[in-house]
């Protein structure tokens, strides 16, 4: 069965050729084939999200469901710089991150359906995707709550003697939460001693639920908030995959090299409503959504690929194949069994220390 896993593996195999004289990896020449691979992944993510929204409306997915439509280029581009052993942590809008790291569409969809075959056995649902073997350290539901965890993970990676980094994703809304400020301060402080290889990726999709950035803070330049904590930063066009990839490689290498945190504010847009249950969108205009849609990251990439000489038929075939991948995932989720009732009482306490990531990093040393 076709999954995103194959290309995730390929992506990680970035060879030593991809570095400039300063040892900083760059995309030396345009790798159109790689971009075509990412086009496929972004289309899978988009179709996956649309399918999950449909399943939500049919009552097959419960709870809260937050989709990534409009933001695909951000995680796709940043995770291009992911190396095995790097850790990724994000909030509840987490499907794309898991899929890009190698969780299969089948197991993610089955999780949304609350099935035994789900990524976390039906226990967490959409907001809590974990795939530790693939470096996905979780989706979290309490705004801000995961940010200190990412900073601690970064400390641990250095403490354990690796050259891995953490990609810590957070929203524009989360940046106003106290947890962010305490964690960023720690990261800056520990980074002075090279003990905090944490790449903060602020996914500024313009809104935290119904509250725009302007209505949430008087200092709307979110990247600059990191100045307070001695963390350097930049912004990137989060709709443009190539721009994100360029930025990602450059800054990930720097964080890896220095052990200091760094922050990128990715300017993007949540095209979908905040959650699948939200339909009243009184806080923004249709016109505004339409304008952002013109820069839809998938459309943008599509136009570029055609410019670069990729044939429309090929993209068409990719879209058709992506649809099959997602249809298959939905079928799989639908047909999978519910978790057995005994599962209710398992996993409350750990029986022994099952620390896959630690074993993995020990093995690499």
């Amino acid at each position, binding site marked *: 069965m076709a999954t995103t896993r194959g290309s995730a593996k390929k992506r990680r195999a970035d060879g030593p050729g991809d570095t400039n004289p300063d040892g900083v990896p760059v995309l030396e020449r345009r790798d159109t084939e790689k971009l075509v691979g990412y086009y496929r992944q972004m289309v899978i993510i988009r179709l996956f999200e649309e399918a999950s929204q449909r399943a939500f409306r049919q009552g097959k997915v*419960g*709870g*809260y469901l937050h989709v990534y439509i409009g933001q695909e280029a951000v995680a796709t581009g940043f995770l291009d710089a992911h190396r095995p052993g790097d850790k990724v942590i994000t909030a509840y809008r987490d499907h794309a991150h898991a899929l890009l790291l190698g969780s299969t569409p089948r197991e993610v969809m089955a*999780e949304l359906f*609350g*099935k035994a075959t*789900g990524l976390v056995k*039906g*226990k*967490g*649902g959409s*907001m*809590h995707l974990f795939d530790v073997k693939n470096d996905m350290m979780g989706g*979290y*539901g*309490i*705004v*801000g*709550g995961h940010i200190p965890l990412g900073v601690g993970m970064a400390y641990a990676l250095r403490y354990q003697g690796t050259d891995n980094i953490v990609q810590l994703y957070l929203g524009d*809304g*989360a940046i*106003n*939460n*106290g*947890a962010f400020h305490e964690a960023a301060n720690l990261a800056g402080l520990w980074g002075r001693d090279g003990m905090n290889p944490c790449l903060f990726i602020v996914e500024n999709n313009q809104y*935290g*639920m*119904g*509250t725009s950035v302007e*209505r*949430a*803070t008087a200092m709307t330049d979110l990247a600059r908030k990191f100045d307070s904590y001695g963390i350097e930063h930049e912004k990137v066009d989060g709709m443009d995959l190539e721009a994100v990839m360029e930025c990602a490689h450059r800054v990930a290498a720097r964080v890896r090299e220095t052990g200091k945190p760094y922050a990128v504010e990715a300017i993007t847009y949540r095209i979908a409503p905040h959650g699948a249950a939200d339909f*009243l969108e*009184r*806080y923004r205009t249709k016109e505004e959504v339409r304008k952002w849609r013109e820069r839809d990251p998938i459309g943008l990439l599509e136009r570029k690929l055609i410019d670069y000489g990729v044939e429309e038929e090929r993209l068409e075939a990719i879209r058709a194949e992506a649809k099959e991948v997602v249809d298959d995932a939905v079928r799989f989720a639908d047909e999978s069994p*519910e*978790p057995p*009732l005994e*599962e*209710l*009482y398992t996993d*409350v306490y750990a029986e022994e220390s099952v620390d896959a990531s630690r074993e993995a990093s020990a093995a690499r040393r």
Partner: protein
Amino acid sequence: MPVTTYREALRSAMAEEMERDESVVLIGEDIGVYGGTHLVTDGLLERFGPKRVIDTPISEGGFTGAAIGMAMMGMRPIVEMMTWNFSFQAADQIIQNAAKIHYFSGGQASVPLVIRGPNGGGVQLSAQHTHSLEGFYGHFPGLKVVSPVTPHDAKGMMIAAIRDPNPVIFLEAGALYGTKGEVPEGEYTVPFGQARIAREGTDVTLIAYGRQVNLLLRVAERLANEEKIEAEVIDLRSIRPFDEKTIVESVKKTNRAVVVQEQWRWFSVASEVAAILQEQAFDYLDAPVERVSGAEVPAPYARNLEQAAFPSEQQVIEAVRRVTYRARGA
């Protein structure tokens, strides 16, 4: 009497009090422009303006603390927790400041504050978004904790909460915002510390609060029809202060009690009820007090697991059979 929803009952209580008293303001996330995540505050921004309906960033600790400061200055803020699950980020402010300032200021300062929002689970929100916090907040002296289930009580207790000179933890039945009931027009209060007898009966006392009261009313009908057991159903409504008298009087009549709650059993409201009954009605009890509670696990996501994690009609019926010694095979 007019019939309105639980949601409208809350809204009209707040709006009427805002009309009556300028010091009442609303503060919370997405309560204004967005209309409120559960539409409880819908329309109030248009009516009262942004100085009195204050949209905040996602900063529970900050805005709850700020509301405590406003309250100390004589304002009467009503804080919306989008859901009570987010109140842990504000718990330091609630527990360390709101609950204790009156005491440690020697009575000089007070905190007339309401913190309200939906509480409890049942719609597959999984571990981080499913909590019933009656026992948690009920633990702290200085806080008042209420949990109304009918639209009538929602309005009457909200007005009482706004007028109370103390911090009130107002736990709404999140799953019941759309349920309808008779609600008087105009102002009335439902005083705290008075339980409500939701159904009279003679054979067993069933005790709950919040949405479990509705479960008990369904169980009581089934028991009457299927097993000829007449259950008395008591809706506690107020967790702190607590109406000991009503439950004790009822058990003196029925000699048996089953307490039902969605929250975890350990250190919970049901544990407190069982202790009160054994202290004050020991000689009247014909069976140990039964507690039916949520499973001792963080809330799972999958529908079947979540259903298994919460009290069911069947579990309550089995508990009733045990206390009435009608257990199958017994």
